[in-house]
């Protein structure tokens, strides 16, 4: 392939881009926190399919007749679908009344999808989610360490955390609701985005067998060659998963829209980090050792 882009030379820029986005998102985090959904702070979420176009105010007034004040209201499907979140559990009696009133006003087609979580149970879910992400990351790191040497494993782990944090940063910046499906999306991204990294590392390892590696330039060539040789695969695989993730995002069900969005961001970030972050980290580490080794030999 006649493609001579140097993936290694500009590593500072790649790290800077990632660093800035992550820093922005994570700076927002301690100030505003994440926009937690009912799964993580308790309360009730109602997905109301109205079947006709309504305004946000109209729906707020509608639920107000049942003494309900939503903490957030969001429209989807050109205003035919309303997502409301209440920090308190609305209870089954009020839900029943609301459903009846909704169908009386907007017809039988209108319906409500409810999700209620008890606050103490929500805490349990948060704990499990954090443990889950950690266990998955460690498990993957151990696997990569067994199959590759530890420098590959550490570089892969960093790029994996980069992807997970990218999704978190994006959701923190744009105040998008975070629920259990978000964690599922992050975990899937963690499991999947490492694929791309592994494919490139696999190639680096293979090329190392035949390459003479004496100077930093040799390593640069090795990494560049390996990325270029697998580039068609990296790009095409990324394209196909993005095709399906986009289909899910734009044509899929409203109730999992945030899940699809998290997945999309994670997949793009995963593609980016495996091309521009992971191998570069490995390269820097190896070259540093090379320099140290040399000075030791000279002195």
């Amino acid at each position: 392939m006649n493609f001579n882009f140097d993936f290694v030379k500009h590593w500072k820029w790649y790290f800077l881009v990632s660093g800035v986005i992550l820093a922005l998102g994570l700076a927002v985090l301690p100030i505003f926190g994440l926009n937690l959904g009912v799964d993580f702070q308790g309360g009730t979420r109602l997905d109301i399919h109205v079947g006709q176009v309504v305004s946000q105010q109209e729906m707020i007034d509608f639920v107000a007749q049942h003494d309900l004040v939503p903490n957030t209201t969001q429209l989807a499907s050109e205003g035919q679908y309303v997502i409301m979140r209440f920090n308190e559990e609305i209870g089954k009696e009020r839900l029943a009344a609301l459903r009846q009133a909704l169908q009386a006003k907007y017809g039988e087609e209108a319906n409500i999808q409810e999700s209620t979580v008890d606050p103490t149970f929500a805490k349990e879910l948060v704990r499990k989610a954090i443990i889950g992400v950690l266990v998955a990351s460690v498990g993957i790191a151990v696997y990569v360490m067994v199959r590759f040497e530890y420098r590959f494993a550490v570089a892969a782990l960093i790029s994996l955390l980069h992807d997970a944090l990218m999704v978190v940063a994006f959701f923190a910046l744009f105040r998008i609701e975070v629920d259990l499906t978000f964690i599922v999306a992050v975990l899937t991204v963690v499991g999947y985005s490492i694929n791309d990294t592994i494919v490139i590392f696999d190639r680096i390892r293979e090329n190392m067998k035949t390459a003479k590696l004496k100077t930093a330039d040799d390593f640069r060539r090795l990494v560049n060659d390996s990325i270029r040789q697998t580039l068609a695969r990296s790009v095409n695989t990324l394209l196909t998963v993005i095709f399906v993730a986009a289909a899910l995002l734009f044509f899929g069900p409203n109730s999992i829209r945030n899940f699809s969005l998290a997945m999309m961001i994670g997949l793009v970030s995963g593609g980016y980090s495996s091309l521009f972050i992971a191998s570069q980290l490995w390269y820097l580490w190896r070259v540093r050792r090379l320099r140290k080794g040399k000075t030791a030999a000279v002195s």
Partner: protein
Amino acid sequence: MKVRAGRALLLFVVLVAAFAGMIATTPWVLDGITLGLDLQGGFEILYQVQPVSEGQEVTPEVITQTIAALERRVNVIGVAEPNFFPEGRDRIRVQLAGVEDQDRARELLGRPARLTFRDMTTGEVLLSGADLVEGGASAVFDKYNRPIVQLKLKDGGKFADITGRYIGQPIGIFLDEELITAPVVQQRITGGIATIEGQRDIAEAQELASLLNAGALPVNLVELQAQSVGASLGQRSLEQGVWAGIIGGVVVLLFMLAYYRLPGLVANISLLVYTYLLLLLFQLLHVTLTLAGIAAFILALGMAVDANILTAERIKEEIRAGKSIPSALKAGSRRALVTILDANITTVLAAAVIYYLGSGSVRGFATTLILSIVLSILTNVWISRLLLQQTVQAGIGVKPWYFGVKEEEIREL
């Protein structure tokens, strides 16, 4: 190499037959798949079981008894396939799909079980669950080896009075407003231990014993998590999910064909077979398809392509390196396999964690992801490889063009 017409024809016939078989059986496969309640409407509640009076403990027996009582109530509403799963130490997950009146069902489920012994004509309540010794009912065999239910009462004297009054008459045992059984009193029972005969088998006796125990130890059910989906909303989600899958799938198929040519066509055949087999597997293993499952399914489709892309790219490289097409196929598939395994095992690891973490629909996602990855490795590696070998042996597609390689890119060996 020449085109071998016989072999090519055979391959073609086999493929056409396989696809005809798949298309013919698809409606049957789809019909047999169990839809989760987020796709067909219904609700799911996670209850925390709490004793009504203090000092009581929630033991595994209490959970079993409570489930028996809940099942009984659900039968009254008439739900096709209710599911009850004990979770953790003191929780019960209830899943009711396709309930007509969700709000009523939920109201009914949440109340503690109320057990009463009543006069069959006047309806007067003679005894309540509180008069039974907790956990005192059991299914045993009498001396003729017939299954019976034995129950202990707290106050033997009170029971002796009642049975004395009702000799030769039935006493109705009600759970809520439902008559469970109406045994006829044979004699005055003084010892505080009664037996109920006429059980068809030991299973029936055990169920009755469970219900009596549930009535003797009423529990409060606190909703920890509730999810309800209207039937029309579930239907819409299903349609949108399937629609998204078809759009995403078609784009992927077109892309593969345009970019990879022969290996792309082969990949597409494998992908279609893979999709069919995955659906079949869902049906055979009774995996419940949830909304999250559809999402996993669609993503898995994108990931399954990866195995084909890896192989196709490897073959391209081998051809460019100057290998003949048959040996490029061999080397390319072999070298790609290691990478494919490495890449997929990590996703399986993550999915296993999701499975452990989640319950309900989240588990549906993890199950689908794991199943699809395992199946993907099988079909997209094995079928693709077989098909490529067969086409090349049949003498079709032996020019580098078919693999997306330009003649001038090929290096001499």
